[in-house]
């Protein structure tokens, strides 16, 4: 594939292997040294860098918003949307008054390939791979579900103890370096105000909890913000989303990302499940990448704007 000369000529309307996404990240940093930097928060099991793009206009340890995509590697539309979000932030800063106001006071951190070993594996060995790629001692089956490995209700119902299961929780909480690296980064930063983890598919916007029926103390606010976000999302193409707490809207899931982040005090913790509801599942055609990213961006802006205007 001819190397794009700059991030403007990157082909956002197609899926890309990991090396091309990593090259795009470096290009974006090189082109925008006063806005974008790359932080390597750790390595995956197989030694790939865990890259986080930091969008900042200055200050020190400003209140921050986290967005991650691709924690389940086969959910390709999420990594592709994350790449588009990165470019959108750079393009809109200084143009979009809402985003400019946010970035003048807050930082945005974006991890596009949150499960790089799994993502590489989907391109080269098994397109349907979801988990990490760390072998499990005592089993022929490989990998842990990185969205069941967090220290939030870990080990409870809603995850499997069987290494061969797609929802295998792992031998202990934070056993996966892909998870532990985010945990350590969030704990050391100590000033995240929103945490958005993006999955596909089934078109839902979810907030904690997944491991317990106990409502979060901020349920009313998170519910009304979710409603606003999915209304903005639907305004573009009419894509319909359901919303609510994880346990009430889909099923019980223990060890989940946003349950942990919420319990760390990050109030605006959400999980997206992007397109599709229709015919494609995880094999969403590339021609739906940009429409999906554009509509999701409207929901992200609703959440980021609310976070900015409601400091805590």
């Amino acid at each position, binding site marked *: *594939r*001819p190397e794009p000369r700059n991030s403007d000529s990157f*082909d956002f*309307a*197609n*899926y*890309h292997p990991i090396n091309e996404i990593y090259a795009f990240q470096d290009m974006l940093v090189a082109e925008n040294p006063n806005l974008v930097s790359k932080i390597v928060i750790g390595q995956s099991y197989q030694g790939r860098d865990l890259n986080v793009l930091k969008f900042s206009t200055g200050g020190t340890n400003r209140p921050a918003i986290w967005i991650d995509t691709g924690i389940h590697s086969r959910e390709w539309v999420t990594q592709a949307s994350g790449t588009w979000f990165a470019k959108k932030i750079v393009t809109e800063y200084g143009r979009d008054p809402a985003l400019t106001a946010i970035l003048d006071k807050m930082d945005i951190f974006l991890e596009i390939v949150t499960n790089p070993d799994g993502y590489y594996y989907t391109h*080269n*060995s*098994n*397109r*349907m791979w979801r988990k990490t790629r760390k072998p499990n001692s005592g089993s022929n089956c490989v990998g842990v579900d990185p969205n069941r490995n967090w220290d939030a209700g870990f080990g409870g119902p809603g995850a499997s103890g069987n290494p*061969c299961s*797609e929802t295998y929780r792992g031998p202990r909480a934070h056993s996966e370096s892909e998870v532990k690296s985010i945990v350590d980064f969030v704990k050391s930063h100590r000033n995240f105000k929103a945490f958005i983890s993006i999955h596909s*598919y*089934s078109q839902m916007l979810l907030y904690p909890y997944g491991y317990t029926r106990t409502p979060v103390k901020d349920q009313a606010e998170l519910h009304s913000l979710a409603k606003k976000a999915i209304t903005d999302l639907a305004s573009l193409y009419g894509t319909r989303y359901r919303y609510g707490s994880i346990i009430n*809207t*889909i*099923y019980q899931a223990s060890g989940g990302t946003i349950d942990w982040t919420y319990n760390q005090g990050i109030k605006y913790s959400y999980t997206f499940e992007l397109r599709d509801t229709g*015919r*494609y*599942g*995880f*094999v969403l*055609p*590339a021609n739906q990448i940009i429409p999906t990213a554009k509509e999701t961006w409207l929901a992200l802006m609703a959440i980021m704007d609310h976070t900015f205007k409601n400091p805590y």
Partner: protein
Amino acid sequence: KETFEGHQVLRIVAKDEGQLSLIKALEDMSEFELDFWRGVTDVSTPVDIRVPFHSLQSVKIHLEGQDIEYSVMIEDLQAMLDKEQEEMVSAAR
């Protein structure tokens, strides 16, 4: 490289809670090697399951035997993946 010739993705819709439990019970039938793309949530939400070719007939008989409605969301997964791959290659060119 793992390929998926003949794998189908079935979209299963439970009529009631009883059928939902029967669908959930499929999760424990490891011999079918099912891959739940969309897990069991509630009666109003369809369940999508990737079924390997070798299990297709057994699974369909199992569902029909319990009067559980399903449709074929993806006829041949590998054909879709081949198309996705072609698109990536042609975009690269």
